């Protein structure tokens, strides 16, 4: 679609005209003759991206990853990934003369003897937290709006892998300074590994290069942190972005927006500017956080010493939920044949549970597609309320996560709320099972009521707040129809189709028994859509409006003029507006 550039602010109308051949043109020609860029660029330079704030959450993750790369490279210039013991002689007085690993000493050096070093360390740490947090809210946005459906299931899987790798990357980075807090974390990780049946102690000895703590873990974590995982992250991010470009972004339904098109701003200039500007904003916010908010003050923790510990020993927030599961797990242990030990109290919450949760996460789109039997491509987003079971499912998972998260901070909650960690722990043992169920039911019913409310608005209009009195003395609130584009947004959603088992008959006309899986699928599909409210059909809307118009006519006849209530509801002036179809905003 061509733009009438004559009507654009003059300052950028020249930008839209083709560049005159000049030096830049010569460079472009040189490059194109060798790389053939024009073919690809012509398609993508004006590629359309829809504009909505919730589409920028993944961008926060992308840009904080860039901040991580930049600040991380800076840190590697000074950091020494070695566990050789030295006596600290830097400028932080309280630690002077104390024996510590070179890793810790060099981290103190970055913090106190390199100008801007502490800033970079803190920015790196804050950016890591933002990276994982933004991946999570991006994931929630995608799921709640149904953007994980065909054809985007694989991108969902890639995104889940990114979240998993990001978490591991965070944990390895958190462990590198070899301070008391992270060292305690590494020791706990050693305990986690040892709990794995059969191979546990081997894994621990191989990872640590012998018995804990050894002198290999920091260099090994370092290379995993700066090379292995970032490499994987980069590759997966590239794949994630390529698929995004290939599928084109999803969009909200609205006037002119269909399953067959994508409406928004072109890549060049608007989207490039918005995305580029957002990069600077993410970078800037990270810098402000790094400058003003202290994070991971390793000089207070001191060097790792296997005989020391501090109250409030917590991992970073993204490791908080398995840590919480560990805290509320009862102390179960089995001795097999009197010769072997299975530490369920560690193995289940920290090894099995996270693995299970990530598996469930990655399977969600396939599970939903299987249950609903939906094989169509979807490019228009759904409002969370229009998929009540899906929304409720994610809210239940979030509740589970959140309760475990709380359990991970039970000691801090206890001192801040003056309550007992024992009580909090017992309560959470109960709540992690009950909470998600309650959350599921409430969310589902809530969504259905919201659907009902939408239909209400669609059929009978919005509440004007005007109370009318009838000749009989009865009072009623006047409803007015909503404008057509809002009505379109509300009504433009698909009807739910429950999967049913087709009756298959054999050659003798006897119905074949449906396979069990199919029957289960049909049952689940029924449950999935049960009680959902469907958008009214065009005929229903027409009938409702007809009814409303009729009422208005009666009203007008009584009042002697065409009072439509718009005069009083304060939404706008009524001069020249038609009765219906006016813009209420």
């Amino acid at each position, binding site marked *: 679609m061509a733009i009438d550039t004559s009507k654009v602010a*003059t300052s950028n109308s020249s930008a839209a005209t083709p560049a005159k051949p000049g030096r830049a043109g010569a460079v472009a020609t040189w490059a194109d003759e060798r790389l053939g860029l024009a073919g690809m660029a012509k398609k993508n330079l004006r590629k359309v991206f829809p504009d909505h704030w919730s589409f920028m959450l993944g961008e926060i993750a992308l840009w904080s990853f860039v901040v991580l790369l930049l600040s991380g490279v800076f840190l590697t210039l000074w950091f020494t990934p070695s566990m050789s013991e030295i006596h600290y002689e830097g400028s932080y007085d309280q630690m002077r003369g104390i024996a510590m690993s070179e890793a810790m000493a060099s981290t103190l050096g970055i913090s106190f003897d390199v100008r801007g070093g502490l800033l970079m360390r803190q920015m790196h740490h804050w950016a890591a937290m933002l990276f994982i947090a933004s991946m999570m809210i991006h994931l929630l946005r995608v799921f709640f709006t149904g953007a994980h459906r065909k054809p985007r299931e694989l991108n969902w899987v890639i995104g889940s892998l990114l979240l998993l790798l990001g978490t591991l990357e965070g944990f390895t980075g958190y462990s590198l300074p070899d301070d008391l807090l992270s060292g305690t974390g590494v020791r706990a990780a050693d305990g986690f590994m040892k709990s794995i049946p059969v191979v546990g102690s081997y894994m621990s000895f191989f990872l640590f290069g012998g018995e804990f703590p050894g002198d290999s873990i920091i260099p090994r974590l370092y290379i995993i942190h700066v090379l292995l995982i970032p490499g994987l992250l980069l590759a997966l991010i590239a794949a994630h972005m390529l698929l995004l470009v290939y599928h084109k972004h999803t969009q909200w339904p609205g006037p002119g927006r269909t399953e067959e098109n994508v409406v*928004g701003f072109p890549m060049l200039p608007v989207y490039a500017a918005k995305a580029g500007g957002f990069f600077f904003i993410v970078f800037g916010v990270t810098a402000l956080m790094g400058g003003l908010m202290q994070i991971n003050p390793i000089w207070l923790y001191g060097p790792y010493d*296997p005989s020391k510990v501090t109250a409030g020993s917590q991992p970073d927030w993204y490791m908080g939920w398995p840590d919480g599961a560990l805290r509320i797990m009862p102390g179960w242990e089995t001795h097999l044949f009197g010769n072997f030990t299975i530490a369920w*109290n560690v193995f289940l919450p920290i090894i099995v549970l996270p693995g299970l949760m990530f598996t469930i996460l990655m399977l969600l789109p396939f599970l939903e597609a299987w249950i609903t039997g939906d094989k169509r*491509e979807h490019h228009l987003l759904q409002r969370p309320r229009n998929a009540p079971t899906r929304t409720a499912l994610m809210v239940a998972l979030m509740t589970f996560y959140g309760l475990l998260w709380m359990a991970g901070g039970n000691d801090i909650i206890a001192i801040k709320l003056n309550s007992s960690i024992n009580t909090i722990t017992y309560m959470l043992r109960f709540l992690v099972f009950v909470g998600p169920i309650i959350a599921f039911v409430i969310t589902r019913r809530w969504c259905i009521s919201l659907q009902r409310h939408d239909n209400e608005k669609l059929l009978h209009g919005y509440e004007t707040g005007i109370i009318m009195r009838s000749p009989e003395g009865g009072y009623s609130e006047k409803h007015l129809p909503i404008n057509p584009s809002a009505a379109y947004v509300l009504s433009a959603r698909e009807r739910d189709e429950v999967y049913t088992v087709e009756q298959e008959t054999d050659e003798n006309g006897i119905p074949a028994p449906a396979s069990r899986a199919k029957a289960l699928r049909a049952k689940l599909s029924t449950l999935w859509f049960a009680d959902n409210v469907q958008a009214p059909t*065009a005929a229903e809307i027409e009938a409702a409006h007809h009814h409303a118009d009729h009422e208005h006519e009666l009203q007008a006849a009584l009042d002697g003029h065409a009072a439509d209530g718009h005069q009083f509801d304060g939404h706008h002036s009524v001069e020249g507006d038609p009765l219906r179809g006016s813009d209420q905003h």
Partner: protein
Amino acid sequence: MSGHSDNLPVADDGNPGLPEHTWRPTDVDPKAEKRAERQVAALFGLSAVCAVLFVVAYFSLQVGDNHDTVLGLGASNVALGSALGGALLFIGIGIIQWARKLMADHEISELRHPAASSDEDRAATVAALQAGLEESGIGRRPLVRNSMLGAIGLLGAPVVVLLRDLGPTNAQVADAATGQGLEHTVWKQGVRIVRDVVGTPIRPSDIEIGDLFNAEPATIFETDEDGEPLIEGVPLQVAKSKGAVVLIRMDPADNTPGRGRKNWSVDGILCYSKICTHVGCPISLNERKTHHLLCPCHQSTFDLADAGRVIFGPAARALPQLPIAVDSEGYLVAQSDFTEPVGPSYWERDY
């Protein structure tokens, strides 16, 4: 793709189409346009000022020995962070403002294509694939195919084997004499219990009821005649990570010694491993009156007056107790090593 359009109740006939474009003040009012232009330029200017401030702060504010402070905060970090943050944020806000106010904001529409390839493309791909496979003869020569797959599969072996030397196994390092391996610690008969950090031996009379000592085996503080430590580096860390203990003294009447542990204490002085049996955090959060020891990592709580029994939290096993006695010079010593492995459970743990 078109199969579901009839499923949209209002969509096809009711889609009102893209709304008409409306103009921004900056599009129609040259004054507003100029103002926005100045605004954006001013934002970029502010960013430049911040960048200069960053350089000034870098060179003027000291870190290290003469750390400058401002309002009780580290001045260098706060100034550099604020300046860098400002420099970046103002550029970002400027660009966004430019995009919002001055760049063309016509929404345009682009058609989607199904993710799947066309049928012709698929057919051509399948044909090409079949031709390739046919020419390779992989289907006709199972011997070649299977031997190749086998050979490639076996390449996994070098990969796995190469990782073997990442570390020795527990069985390889296990040595009761030096306290190596998961089953042993450096404690043995006659090893003195010394104060942590300072390494001085302890007499029973040093300990009052209600005291808690964070202690270590004397082994890790021992030096040779030149004053060089006997163990250092990795063996020292290993010894510390399993050997750390807490010594507490309680009224002997409070204590219920475990079976066979009647003579493991000295006048109400008990010695327990400091390493939590859950995942191995050191624990020393003791309640003096109840003799409950709490782990700060996951809140396992052990009753030291009852043989280290677990009374709360995720730990499954009691805290190992170290049998202690008094040596000829009147100092506290271990009677033996721990009678069970300290720290977290593992598969091969056979009791």
